[in-house]
């Protein structure tokens, strides 16, 4: 009989303790960010999709070695380059990223020895069309510094 009542009382007490905690939380400030109205800044190391780094004279540092293409586990990078007449180094003519396949692992950036690609800070890409995610990075580079 004693156990019966003590269980009722301890049970009731535990319920009141729980309610006191939620009561305290009720009056503490909110912690969420109202997403479309407020946004957070991305951290410095945030891994978005890759972008070409703007090197000297607004040109890319890429030497078309193809390491990133090889390192990519999902085959999303394809690049091409040709030697301009009279030039010594190959120049990048095409650099496309198939973002539909990319899993943001960062292998490409790591494999690049020439500091040519880096992560962008874009995180809320959305579209209804698949084609929007075939990025032409060379074009994006040009867009960034006209």
């Amino acid at each position, binding site marked *: 009989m004693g156990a019966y009542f003590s269980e009722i009382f301890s*049970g009731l007490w*535990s319920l009141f303790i*729980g309610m006191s*905690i*939620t009561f305290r*939380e009720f009056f503490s400030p909110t912690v969420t960010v109202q997403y479309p109205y407020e946004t957070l800044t991305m951290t410095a*190391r945030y891994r978005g999709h890759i972008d070409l780094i703007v090197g000297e004279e607004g040109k890319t540092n890429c030497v078309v070695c193809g390491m990133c293409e090889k390192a990519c586990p999902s085959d999303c990078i394809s690049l091409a380059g040709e030697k301009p007449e009279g030039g010594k180094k190959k120049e990048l003519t095409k650099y496309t990223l198939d973002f539909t396949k990319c899993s*943001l*692992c*960062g292998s490409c950036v790591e494999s690049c020895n020439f500091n040519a690609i880096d992560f962008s800070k874009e995180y809320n890409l959305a579209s209804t069309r698949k084609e929007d995610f075939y990025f032409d990075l060379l074009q994006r580079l040009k867009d960034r510094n006209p």
Partner: protein
Amino acid sequence: MSAPIKLRPDETFILNVGPQHPATHGVLRVKMEMDGEYIVNAETVIGYIHRMHEKMGELKTYSQFLMNLSRMDYLGALGYSHGHVLLIEKAAGIEVPERAEYIRAITVELNRIASHLFWFGAFVMDLGGFSPLMYALQDREYILDMLEAITGSRLTYSYYRFGGLYNDVDDDFIAAARRFIPRMRTSMKKYHKLVTGNIIFRKRLEGIAPLTPEICRKYGASSAVARGSGINFDVRKNEPYSVYPEFDFDVPVFHECDSLARYNVRMAEIEQSLRIIEQGLDKLPGGPIMPEKKLKAIKVPPGDYYQAVETARGSFGVRLVSDGGKTPYRLKLRSPTYSNMHLFDESCRGMLIMDALAFMGSLDLVIPEIDR
């Protein structure tokens, strides 16, 4: 709580729990044969998000495949990467700088806490309490912020490399981690008051789904499922790897065998992980995080290798059969939840459906990790 009944087949009905069901946390399907609210028989159907990681492992080079490991389990990704890098390092004979190992241990434990926090919230939500999930997510958010700052990603970290790490940690991270420990301890007190002590919660879990040590052994259960049944098994202690022997921590073991014991194990594990992080931060040595000599493409001598690690969900094993080539000849991923989930079919017979779903929650399922 159990119904020892013999039924005619026309008295039962089939209830499909899943593939889309609030309690399965993903695409898991359990075909339950029910007698009213009692489960007569259950058959778990998995494989809805099977991605054939093992074939990918055979087709990709070692370093290309490394990224897949964090996609196995989206809640405790680092533990899985850890197992894989340890295996390859062991097999290929790569030396790892001590600092890297310490950082790995710290980040794995942080990730373990994050995973347990999410499980805690989801588990209480399975039982119908919604608010603890939000509190747990707040605490988890601190961890994700810290890990994002050093790895650049919030869930699928791809942080470890063969021989070390991708990025070094900075002072901000260390300071944030130090701040996090007391905050988390305060939160734990709150959780214990709000949830663990709650009479409704205890009544729902006490004596539900007792798993004998024998069942655990027959099914190869690990993590809290085994430790809640009185089995003192933690790969970190049983087969010490990495720098875990340097740390002073306990393996929480509960002998009640019920769902509450499994809950208690995980909650106690959070506190032990905090201890490990604390010690790791104190002991963190300086130095490089990658071997001095840059690694060429990795090749593993032919042979058969196995490495087990304790992830948030239990004993995760990687078996590598190498023929000396650039890619593994065979890579087997032994996922802990696969074994833990397997015993559900047998154990849930005769249970009420709501107890069975509480039991399912106590197993800490992450479906992509089962399906691989």
